[in-house]
């Protein structure tokens, strides 16, 4: 109960503190700030698990077939006999790594954490529209996380069909052992997760539309809120489709329906299913799957917009264009899903349409990048750890984004589809960007979350290890992929039989990649230490540590129920009045009324 002690120490003069039971304050809390922190803690834990899983399979990829105490320590004799990873478990690790990272860390952790914490605080609301639904959303998220973790421990192994769980592989336990109980748990977990996400998203949307304080027009909202708003809309429109895909898959698995199955003989057994189409599943899955990329990315871009403007001491360049590009990306994300399916046998003409729509997304993305660059231009940059992570995000967004142009081109996707080039692309543009955005958010809003400061030097160390480590992992993967290496391969020894040059390239680069992966993983220890140590023993935060303009920094340092002790603040200007000529200091908070003769931006 260290938190309780620390709490008691820090609160001598808190007049608004009223006695709350431990359970209603820390566990079944309906306060958006506590729920946000719960999301963050759960997601950090899930992220650590997923990172460990990736280290386990990276060891196999770098030193295939070699005995490793590390593997036998974590996986035991069943899945790593004599310290050598089993083929099936390799697929299980890959699958659960992907699932946790995409859904539990980057969706739950990013949108769940920061939407909850920032939406009421930056809009001037006392809390979310429905505190109870918000609590429900978190606890369903926690439950689905627990079920997903349990699936790692069942006897037949976790789901093994890749995070996209394409049937028939995922529908037939005869095809791979993980498609038994492991896959059932995956489906149960994801169903609960989707419900959690839906409840959360609806809450965010309602709050943003209804609970803005006086003067907070839509065009005075910080870009973070715009990003959360569009993210929530994407979630509401796309997650139900994943649910339907999962439901049909469950029916195929349990009730003998043939939505995805047709003309199959597996394990010597001739199935009678006829007329189903595995491609149908892929359409349904990617109808969520592609918006999901932006569900992950938009909050990160929103957070970094805020952080870059604040720490450049400049207004974000092209505020309206930034909103327009968020909306454009959100809209386009719904009509591009087919670019995941160019080589599935989908009609080539349909493929052409998806090439067109997909490449269109590059335009709003380019606008965002150039607007970030112009925001930095002639700024007065304060390189806080949050700022470094935000700049890192812009770099990964560029580096990962440009390769998307190649993969969106169906003619080129033919040879790169399902190779490591794809793995490199989405890990940089989605994984690194979103994780950097999340770290940026944690460093920037930690004082608001916990009333204390993180250690800046440790923040720097963490940033540099993470930037170098993560680029070191994912950048060489482009070359592995261009050399032709398929993803989800247990090892590349097959290459030694027919193309030794490629084989040597893959061995070399895989060892480099794994080394960087281990480095980056160890680097996260710095963060964990800094994070948990500072929660309890970090120096107390001032009210507005970054001299920012937005409303959350007008609340008291010690968080209280209802956020503002007196009346809600009234907003008079947009959130980006940094270094405005004629002002007495380099920022003007949103609650400062316009001066006589002053024009709004």
């Amino acid at each position, binding site marked *: 109960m260290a938190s309780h002690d620390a709490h008691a120490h820090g609160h001598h003069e808190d007049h608004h503190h009223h006695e709350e039971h431990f359970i209603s304050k820390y566990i079944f809390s309906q306060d958006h700030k506590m729920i946000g922190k719960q999301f963050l803690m759960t997601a950090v834990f899930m992220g650590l698990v997923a990172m460990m899983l990736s280290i386990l399979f990276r060891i196999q990829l770098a030193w295939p077939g070699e005995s490793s105490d590390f593997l036998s320590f974590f996986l035991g004799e069943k899945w790593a006999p004599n310290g050598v990873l089993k083929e099936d478990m390799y697929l299980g690790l890959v699958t659960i790594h992907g699932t946790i990272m995409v859904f539990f860390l980057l969706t739950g952790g990013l949108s769940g954490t920061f939407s909850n914490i920032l939406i009421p605080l930056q809009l001037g609301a006392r809390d979310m529209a429905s505190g109870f639904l918000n609590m429900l959303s978190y606890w369903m998220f926690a439950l689905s996380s627990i079920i997903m973790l349990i699936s790692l421990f069942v006897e037949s192994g976790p789901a093994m069909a890749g995070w996209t769980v394409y049937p*028939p592989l995922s529908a037939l336990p005869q095809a791979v052992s993980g498609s038994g109980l492991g896959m059932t748990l995956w489906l149960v977990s994801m169903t609960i997760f989707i419900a959690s996400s839906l409840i959360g998203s609806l809450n965010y949307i309602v709050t943003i539309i209804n609970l803005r304080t006086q003067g907070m027009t839509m065009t005075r909202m910080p870009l973070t809120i715009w990003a959360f708003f569009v993210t929530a809309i994407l979630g509401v429109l796309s997650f139900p489709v994943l649910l339907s895909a999962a439901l049909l898959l469950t029916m195929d698995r349990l009730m003998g329906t043939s939505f995805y199955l047709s*003309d199959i003989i597996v394990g010597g057994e001739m199935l009678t299913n006829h007329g189903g189409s595995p491609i149908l599943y892929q359409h349904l899955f990617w109808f969520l799957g592609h918006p999901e990329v932006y569900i992950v990315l938009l909050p990160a871009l929103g957070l970094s917009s805020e952080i870059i403007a604040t720490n450049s001491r400049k207004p974000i360049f092209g505020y309206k264009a930034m909103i327009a590009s968020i909306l454009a990306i959100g809209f386009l994300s719904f009509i591009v899903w087919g670019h995941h399916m160019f080589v599935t046998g989908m009609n080539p003409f349909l493929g052409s349409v998806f090439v067109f729509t997909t490449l269109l997304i590059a*335009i709003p993305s380019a606008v965002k990048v150039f607007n970030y660059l112009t925001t930095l231009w002639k700024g007065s940059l304060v390189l806080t750890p949050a700022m470094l992570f935000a700049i890192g995000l812009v770099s990964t967004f560029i580096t990962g984004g440009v390769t998307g142009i190649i993969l969106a081109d169906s003619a080129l996707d033919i040879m790169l589809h399902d190779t490591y080039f794809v793995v490199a692309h989405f890990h940089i543009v989605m994984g690194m960007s979103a994780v950097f955005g999340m770290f940026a958010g944690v460093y920037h809003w930690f004082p608001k979350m916990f009333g204390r400061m993180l250690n800046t030097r440790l923040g720097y160390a963490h940033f540099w290890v993470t930037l170098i480590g993560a680029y070191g992992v994912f950048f060489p993967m482009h070359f592995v992929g261009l050399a032709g290496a398929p993803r989800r391969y247990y090892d590349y020894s097959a290459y030694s039989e027919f193309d030794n040059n490629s084989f040597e390239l893959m061995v070399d680069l895989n060892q480099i990649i794994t080394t960087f992966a281990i480095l980056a993983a160890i680097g996260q220890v710095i963060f964990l230490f800094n994070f948990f140590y500072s929660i309890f023993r970090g120096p107390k935060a001032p009210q507005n540590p970054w001299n920012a303009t937005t409303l959350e920094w007008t609340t008291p340092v010690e968080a209280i129920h209802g956020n503002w002790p007196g009346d809600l603040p009234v907003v008079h200007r947009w959130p980006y009045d940094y270094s405005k000529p004629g002002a007495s200091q380099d920022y003007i908070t949103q609650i400062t009324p316009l001066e006589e003769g002053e024009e709004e931006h």
Partner: protein
Amino acid sequence: MENKLIILLVIVLGAIAVAQLVRIYEISAKLRKNEEHEISNRDNNLNARMMFGFMIAFFAFFIYLMVAYGWTGRGSAASDEGVEMDWLLNLNFVIIIAVFFLTNFLLFFFTWRYVRKPGVPAFYYPHNNKLEMLWTVVPAVVLAVIIILGLQTWNRLSGPSKPEAEKIELFSKQFDWTARYAGADNTLGLYDYKLTLDNNELALLTTNTIDSSLNNMLNGATGIRNLQKLLNNRDTVFSDSTLNVLRTDLSRKERLYRFMTQMKENHNPKLDASAWDDIIQKDTLYLCKGQEYEIALRAKDVIHSAYFPHFRAQMNAVPGMATRLKFTPNKTTAEMRREKNDEKFNYILMCNKICGGAHYKMKMVVVVLDKSAYKKWMDGKKKATFKDQYFPVAAAPADTTAVDTTAVVTMN
């Protein structure tokens, strides 16, 4: 052994590092009087310089990788289509690498150049419509070029093959490939998965195969009659679960039998010939240089993907659905070996869609021969058609026609 040591070392060093961090943190917290939120100019400038340094190192790393591992990493394309795709890929790479360098440079350069300097305020610059139009229109124009070129190539690659293209079917199952050449008539025989039997692994559709499958379903060891006998036997007592399994199995087989009876009624015996002359080929896929191939794909159990990295061709094989791809090899295996200076090099067909535990081992060697060698090989296969295999008494021993990979290649 070496690795165990490394792991141990890493864990120990990690633990030491954490312990040290704690101490440094405690001491620095006491020593430093400035607050965490006030970034000193020294820290600010140091990080700005490190950002710029990182950019240089990052670019150098990229250039090193390009030099060390090749511009496109996998050697030249070995098909006409691949040559066209490589051209397009290179063009796209030039564009995106230029953008990559330019924007990353600006990002890190600005970070370094505009780091806070005491007394220099930031420039209030909220928007500029002309600039924003510029970087909306310029990417749009570049993308229009990329889209137009890409779709032209895509239409050619995904369009129909020429009538003279040779037809081959690639049949995939966990975890191997089987090729079926269309034979003298260049028409692939029909198939139905329900006809799969030990002597008809590809489930080809002929009057004989339907009959034997029907017979097997009815009278085979686990056929309908035996199952009925088992279930009707009053002397044996089954547990509920076994009974359930047997009953499900029986009803499944009865349903399949009904379908197959219908199939027999609708079957047109004239189509048998196109199946009988098909040539089934395992282990190695032989192709002819300069010959266009129209490849049909089929999957028995789960989704697989036929991936020919050197021909730059790929297409999924989907259960219950017909998919296709086409390409024209333009270099024989021998030529590619000379080019790569690797006597053991072979073309390959790999599975590139996760399909189970041994996914990574699912492959088939591909050998491209010149016209005369290919014809010679094909002539040798004339007496190893499906018909010859199905009625083994009438056929010559199949093994004499098998050609050793290396032997054929060295012939030219």
